[in-house]
């Protein structure tokens, strides 16, 4: 640790320099506090407003018509689950495949190009992805659907999963691959059963982070999944999603809907935080490392 000014050995440090040092300390500490405060305040509000509004009806019923009391977001929760399942089913395999390409094959020009496009895709505003998927699927099908929402979220998941997979595969020592290949195991089997398996903890982390990131996305769903006031189990029809419902309710003029928006937000955040925390525990405790 650096020696603190004020010791006998640093008596000659001028008042100004000592003052600046203290000022910098105070600034850094207060910055840390200021960053943490909104987080704490948001969580307190979520729990305070959300728990008070949670009830059985909220978890089991569909929304009531505007202005009527009661109702819930059950259809939105199920809709979100359907959309996220679709997104994961498409986005995670594609992301992992792309990551494998980048780590195991893509050490050429084209690999660099793919790497760069993945980073570009990561920075594309979610609303722009919404427009693109709208014109690809919704415009051609002439109706909104959970399916198109899933595709939009999948596109957002791919770059995160791909870069995480690449990074983790690159950390697998080459001897492991060579040992496998030396036993006569074909390359595809080596990649899937040896390299990917060794890297699985990190790859799973990447997938969970991508999932957490898209779970709360609203903008790309506005004109793809669109939302729905009723039960809908057909992924080819407009489907309600939790973030969309929160958005609509928050901007409505009804107090009861505001209350439900808080409850919905609480459920959404509990879901996401649970996922992130699970990842943290899994990676720090090494519970997933047994997979290798």
């Amino acid at each position, binding site marked *: 640790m*650096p020696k603190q*000014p004020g010791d006998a050995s*640093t008596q000659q*440090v001028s008042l100004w*320099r000592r003052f*600046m*040092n203290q000022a*910098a*300390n105070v*600034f*850094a500490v207060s*910055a840390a506090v*200021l960053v*943490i405060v909104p*987080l704490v*305040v948001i969580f307190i509000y979520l729990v305070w*407003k959300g728990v008070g509004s949670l009830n059985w009806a909220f978890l089991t019923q569909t929304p009531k018509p505007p202005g009527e009391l009661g109702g819930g977001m059950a259809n939105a929760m199920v809709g979100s689950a359907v959309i996220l399942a679709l997104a994961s089913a498409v986005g995670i395999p594609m992301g992992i*495949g*792309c990551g494998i390409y980048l*780590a*195991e*094959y893509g050490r050429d020009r084209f*690999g660099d*190009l*793919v*790497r760069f496009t993945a*980073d*570009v*895709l990561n*920075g*594309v*505003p*979610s*609303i722009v992805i919404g*427009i*693109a998927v709208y*014109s*690809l699927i919704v415009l051609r099908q002439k109706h909104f659907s959970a399916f198109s929402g899933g595709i939009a979220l999948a*596109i957002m998941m791919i770059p995160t999963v791909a870069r995480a997979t690449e990074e983790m595969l*690159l950390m697998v020592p*080459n001897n492991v691959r060579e040992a496998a290949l030396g036993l*006569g195991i*074909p*390359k*595809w089997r080596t*990649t899937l059963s040896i390299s990917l398996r060794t890297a699985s903890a990190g790859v799973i982390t990447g997938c969970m982070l991508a999932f957490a990131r898209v*779970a*709360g*996305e*609203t*903008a790309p769903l*506005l004109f793809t999944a669109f939302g729905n006031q009723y039960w809908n189990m057909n992924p080819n029809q407009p489907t309600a999603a939790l*973030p969309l419902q*929160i958005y609509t309710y*928050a901007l409505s003029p009804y107090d009861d809907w*505001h209350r439900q928006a808080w409850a919905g937000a609480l459920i*959404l*955040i509990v879901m*996401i*935080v649970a996922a992130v925390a699970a990842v943290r525990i899994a990676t720090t405790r090494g519970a997933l490392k047994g997979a290798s």
Partner: protein
Amino acid sequence: MTAIPALANAATERRVSVASSVLQRIRTTQPRSSRLPDAVFRVLILVTAVSVFAIVVFVVWELVDKSRLSLHQFGVGFFYGHDWDPVNDQYGAMPFIYGTLVSSLLALLLAVPLSVGVAVYLTEMCPIRWRAIISFLVELLAAIPSVVYGLWAIFVLAPLLRDYVEPFLARTLGWTGLFTGPIYGIGMLAAGIIMAIMIVPIIASITREVLTAVPQNQREAVLALGATRWEMIRMGVLRNARIGIVGGIILGLGRALGETMAVTMVIGNRPEISKSLFAPGYTMASVIANEFSEATGDLYLSALVEIGLALFLVTLIVNALARLLVWSITGGAAGRVRA
């Protein structure tokens, strides 16, 4: 172990015979049976990689294609036209560009000192046992969905601004012209503040990464010259890391420019250009979010897509710039690590 040599020998022989039979099988079947699956696997993997590239090309293509109508009709004038009038089919994007720029810059102005401060605290000052907890909390801030930030901003931040902060600013700094006019709570200032909270974790995590990459001996060298801790941080750490920090800031800017939901919920959604930060505004992302699904008429839709295209291109440039800067510090793309 080898008390009975005959048994041991038998075991060894058996092992050898198993091994040789495996080798035999590999030798005879491997080349033919693995060539095809390997080729198929390679093609499958290549397809996923190509499709990532294809997705980006396709996004650009769709945006250009769908905005063609508006591009022809208004040309470059679209970007400095002030009127946004769907009734008369007149579209100019200036109010949205202005709103996006002002709210993003305001967010950066608030977020940069905070995130650099928190990163410096975490890497240089924080006791080790606090470090993991605080960085986890900062990461958690990034995990909160945009719409939840928006919800909080509407019901907590905006009333707070309306009742306390904005009247105070109007009294003390009203003469600058930035803090005048009717006080609604929602408006440019609220949007800037909520966006600042959202981009702090991005800038902070990258700054932290860059600060950690500064070699320890740089710090020791400056301290050995008799510097205080702040002088060590300023000369030994921040000066070495400045390019990477700028990269992180630009990455945060990229995120702020494209941020949609939270801003849409608190910026007021009025296509006007006003000097005062209390006034409602409108951003490029929010106008798309609000009007896209209700847009009637091809030109209206086309104009909205053109805004999307502009947003895409700006974030593309901003992100590419940021990546280059960050890579120049932390040592290139991940793929370059292995020779």
